[in-house]
């Protein structure tokens, strides 16, 4: 199955600001997502990496329309989701689903697994009675669980199994597009591999498109066709995953890749780390010019004054950097 080149999701100049209020007056804004554009083609997986606080999850939630975007367009199959309200969104909720980070907090502890998976079927009136039960069993089977798990409660399952339940719930409405918000970071290494393999199998079986968010760079590379690197509310580099790992162009991407622990003692002792000093600046008052300029080792005067634009340096490889 080769990904066909039809765009499924086009995000254009998306912004999401959160107001900071002082009483009733709005004092300033947290610019969590500040002008992000990218395209995901049908059947493709796009990875999204960046440090915590860079706006990855906010962006995922804005695309899901759990938040109302401040500005910009979210084109899904050519329809702009950004301006829709309330029940207008319902048909799209069926087509875009999400898998959450924390398999412990994202399942309702008072509902049986069958009801958790079946809830979406009820809401969208997809099945009832016997058909509903057989659908739930089929979904559980698809993610490697047993049908009799349907009558149990989430606390009876391990972390990896719970994440499988979360995936079954996302698959229940047969979506086209699934946003995975750090689906494996809470799991053990051996279980991570199980979940990643399963996501890949499901993709080729059902023709799914993924947006895969993570801060673990090793796994992202394994699952993604292309990868976007985010820093302080902006994308700084997008490239297909091979190019990004082989020849990263943005200093932040380079630092991020060199910080990756290498599970090989001989290579680890040889490799040189580019350490980024300090912490990420606050998104309330981001630096003028390039946002990475405060921590960048190649910084020069232009970087401080002028914000770099995203430009294409080779086919499909976009970088926002002056140097």
């Amino acid at each position, binding site marked *: 199955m080769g990904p066909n080149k039809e765009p499924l999701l086009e995000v254009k100049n998306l912004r999401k600001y959160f107001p900071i209020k002082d009483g009733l007056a709005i004092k300033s804004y947290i610019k969590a997502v500040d002008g992000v554009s990218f395209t995901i083609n049908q059947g493709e997986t796009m990875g999204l990496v960046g*440090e*915590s606080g860079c706006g990855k999850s906010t962006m995922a939630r804005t695309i899901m329309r759990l938040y109302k975007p401040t500005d910009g367009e979210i084109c899904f199959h050519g329809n702009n989701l950004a301006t829709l309200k309330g029940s207008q969104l319902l048909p799209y909720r069926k087509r875009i689903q999400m898998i959450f980070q924390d398999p412990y907090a994202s399942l309702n502890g008072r509902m049986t697994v069958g009801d958790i998976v079946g809830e979406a079927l009820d809401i969208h009136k997809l099945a009832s009675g016997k058909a509903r039960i057989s659908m739930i069993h089929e979904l559980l089977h698809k993610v490697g669980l047993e049908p009799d798990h349907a009558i149990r409660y989430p606390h009876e399952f*391990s*972390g*990896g*199994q719970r994440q499988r339940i979360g995936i079954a719930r996302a698959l229940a409405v047969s979506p086209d597009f699934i946003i995975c918000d750090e689906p494996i970071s809470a799991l*053990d*290494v*051996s*279980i*991570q*591999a*199980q979940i*990643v*393999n399963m996501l*890949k199998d499901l993709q080729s079986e059902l023709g799914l498109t993924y947006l895969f968010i993570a*801060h*673990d*760079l*090793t*796994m992202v*590379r*394994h699952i993604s066709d292309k990868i976007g690197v985010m820093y302080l509310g902006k994308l700084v580099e997008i490239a297909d995953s091979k190019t990004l790992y082989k020849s990263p162009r943005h200093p932040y991407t380079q*630092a*991020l890749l*060199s*910080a*990756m*622990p*290498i*599970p*090989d*003692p*001989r*290579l*680890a002792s040889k490799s040189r*780390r580019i*350490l*980024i*000093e300090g*912490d990420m600046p606050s998104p309330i008052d981001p630096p003028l010019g390039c946002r990475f300029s405060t921590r960048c080792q190649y910084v020069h005067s232009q970087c401080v004054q002028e914000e770099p634009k995203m430009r294409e340096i080779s086919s499909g490889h976009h970088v926002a950097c002056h140097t």
Partner: protein
Amino acid sequence: MGEKILELRDLKTSYFTHIGEVKAIRGISFHIHRGEAIGIVGESGSGKSVTALSIMRLLQHPGKIIGGQITFKGKNLLQKSIKEMQCIRGNEISMIFQDSMTSLNPVFTVGNQIIEVILQHHKISKKEAKVKAVEMFKLVGISSPEKRMNQYPHEFSGGMRQRLMIGMALSCEPTLLIADEPTTALDVTIQAQILELMKDLKKRLDTSIILITHDLGVVAALCSRVVVMYSGLIMEEGSIENIFYNSKHPYTQGLLKSIPKANWKDKDKLISIEGTPPDLLGLPDGCPFMPRCSYAMEICKREQSPDFEIEENHRSMCWRLHDEAPKIETWMKRGDFHGTK
């Protein structure tokens, strides 16, 4: 290599819960030399953290050490009174916990908390303790320490708080530092900073470090020896070279295989270890890894294998190493791991 400063011999720890005895540690032995860093790796529930808590004698009810010996600098820690343990904790053995947010007290300034540790173990005035605290802040790379001392934990970022914890743990210059997943909750860039810091401190202060983690990449960066744990037993122990390039236990091999490699190809599948770790309440008689092991034999079901010594400082608990057993091919030849050489 320096003297042995800590030695565990056949340590057994259990939790006596109302539904039965949970055998968290089932007889483990290892040691650590002065100035050495060893890694303990394993999945959650394998007993890594309980090992650390047992050494510190910080087990909470219903946990209990039911057998074995912990020798620290020639003295048996299990025979110490609560008072004596308090003198050792923080002063000679220090611990860094995984979650830096919950291990700092939110209602006291960080300066206050670090000075408290220093005053507890040294007979010096508050003023001198403050000077020492400022030094510690500088050591772990926190800028403008005088100002930072008066701030509360919530004013620090995750990486900064973890630095603080390390600073606090090192403030009495302990001989042994136990770090329980010190970088798990942090970003890779901050993780790299913390690892560099620990490496540097090991060199400068000659501290021994026990690093508990599930990330083999972190171990490769810092440690010279690795202990692999699985459901309360040490499955394999060896030098970092032996574990990474010449591992003899199917579990260690599985762990290594489930990390994506650099020479990955588009459609390559990750090799995962199927199944989940066993329930510690009803442990099987045989090898706990047997249900997930693709090399399992009849005997693995009935009996736990003894330790087999492969060479000096490399041992593994697997029946496949018995003279009469069919051998497993070492899946990873030297240097093959990243396929680059």
